[in-house]
């Protein structure tokens, strides 16, 4: 009745959809990440065997949680550690048909897991590694590859994070209302960091690592579902709007195409629509923050039918708001570029020169590239070449370096 292939397919489907939820619940029940991971896999192996006889149960998630608990009791017995945890885990209902789990509890378990992995008592790179490993279910090798680290280093980071959660007793819970805003910030930061590593890898051969951005967007949808608050919606909107330009951002052989030159037909309309819907919801609350403002800037670009029709006035105004919410030299630089487009290169040059006079961005390649571009627009070729060369010295990402080299060649050619 149930062929092995049918069951294997069913188990695969359940794994994809439910495994991290089951894991989150097992962590709560067992209080141990490693034990939860072990019995999660044992439970799926058991499913593969048993569902051939019994068919897929009505509530596979509850079945898996229950089986996982049962397996954990075995493991604990094998370790012959008869502590109080065993008593508690051993009590439930393994003879009875597992009861469908309370939906809210299970969703809360996922939130608990995210907040635990993003606890500020963990170092930033540990938060990222743990979130990808425990919340998203990526393997240590996959995470290491994405961040260009060797698997041993990444494994160590994950082990250290889990040891600190256990030994320092980082609680497995959603923070109370008073702490929530601060703690959501670190969850959003980790999510955006993962997205950015996939969108604009900080170094290396390719411009983008698509799978990480996809992972971050998936996490963003989970977060919006669990906590539909303004900045959570704002961040997802921002990620969707940026992601919508992916296929227009580079040539087939990986060369950068600037926003101005992108073929807007290639922008993903579905993602733009979803992003703008979320943006509207977030703006409607009037309690939005910097992610929502950045999403609004991305939406202003998405709304322009051609580069020339971009509403630069609106974009400058949005950067003004962003500068108030989170003042930073990077925001100032982006604002200067928008002013260049609104008021002309001379106005932009004054602002960029001011920014480069400060130490923070003096070594930032994009600041020099922005100045070079303004000189190019002003027809000051020698100055433009100087600034592009400085940018090239500082750039670490290969496609960016090739882009800067191309600009330099064009200018040298024009200069004759």
């Amino acid at each position: 009745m149930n062929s092995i292939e049918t069951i294997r397919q069913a188990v695969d489907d359940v794994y994809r959809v439910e495994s991290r939820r089951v894991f989150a619940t097992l962590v709560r029940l067992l209080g141990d990440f490693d034990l939860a991971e072990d019995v999660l896999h044992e439970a799926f192996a058991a499913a593969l065997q048993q569902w051939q006889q019994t068919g897929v149960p009505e509530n596979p998630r509850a079945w898996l949680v229950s089986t996982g608990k049962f397996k954990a009791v075995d493991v604990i017995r094998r370790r012959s550690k008869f502590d109080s945890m065993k008593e508690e885990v051993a009590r439930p209902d393994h003879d009875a048909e597992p009861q469908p789990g309370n939906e809210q509890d299970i969703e809360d378990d996922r939130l608990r897991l995210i907040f635990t992995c993003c606890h500020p008592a963990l170092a930033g790179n540990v938060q990222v590694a743990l979130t990808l490993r425990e919340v998203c279910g990526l393997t240590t090798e996959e995470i290491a590859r994405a961040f260009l680290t060797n698997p041993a280093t990444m494994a160590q980071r994950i082990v250290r994070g889990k040891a600190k959660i256990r030994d320092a007793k980082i609680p497995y819970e959603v923070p109370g209302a008073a702490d929530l805003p601060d703690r959501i910030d670190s969850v959003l930061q980790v999510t955006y960091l993962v997205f950015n590593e996939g969108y604009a890898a900080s170094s290396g051969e390719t411009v983008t690592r698509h799978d990480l951005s996809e992972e971050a967007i998936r996490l963003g949808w989970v977060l919006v579902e669990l906590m539909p608050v303004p900045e959570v919606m704002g961040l997802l909107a921002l990620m969707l709007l940026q992601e919508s330009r992916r296929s227009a951002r580079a040539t087939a052989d990986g060369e950068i195409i600037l926003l101005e030159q992108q073929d807007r037909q290639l922008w993903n309309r579905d993602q733009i629509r979803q992003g703008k819907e979320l943006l509207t919801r977030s703006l409607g609350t009037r309690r939005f923050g910097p992610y929502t403002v950045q999403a609004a800037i991305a939406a202003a670009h998405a709304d322009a039918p051609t580069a020339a029709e971009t509403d630069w006035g609106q974009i400058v105004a949005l950067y003004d708001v962003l500068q108030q919410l989170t003042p930073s030299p990077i925001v100032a630089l982006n604002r200067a570029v928008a002013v260049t487009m609104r008021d002309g290169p001379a106005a932009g040059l004054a602002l960029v020169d001011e920014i480069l006079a400060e130490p923070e961005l003096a070594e930032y390649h994009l600041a020099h590239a922005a100045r070079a571009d303004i000189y190019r627009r002003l027809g000051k070729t020698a100055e433009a070449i100087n600034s592009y060369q400085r940018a090239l010295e500082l750039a670490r990402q290969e496609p960016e370096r090739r882009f800067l080299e191309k600009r330099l060649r064009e200018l040298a050619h024009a200069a004759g």
Partner: protein
Amino acid sequence: MNYMLLIYTDEASWTDGEREDCYQESIALTHQLKKEGKYRAASPLHSVTTATSVRVRDGKRQVTDGPFAETREQLGGYFIVDAADLDEALKIAERIPGARKGTVEVRPVLELVGLPQA
């Protein structure tokens, strides 16, 4: 007058066996001190990798991973508190006045069986 004796060593230079021997020898020492009427409290701490630091600046709490290691400031006091988990410990750390000027390093105390009652 009580003294808190802070032992600084390189954690990585200990093997598990050496550490276990050290615990046993330390327990023996605490019993001797107890007989001499000089024992108040003693405990090893979990590894420095479990440390969390708390600062309060402009009324806002900043929590970071890792030990406090700014060479210009020295240890000026300590609290030993009983908290349910790290979040509760951090909340107490935030209330310590020193957090507004310096940093409070929060380290879980390692439970060691065999120490005498103070």
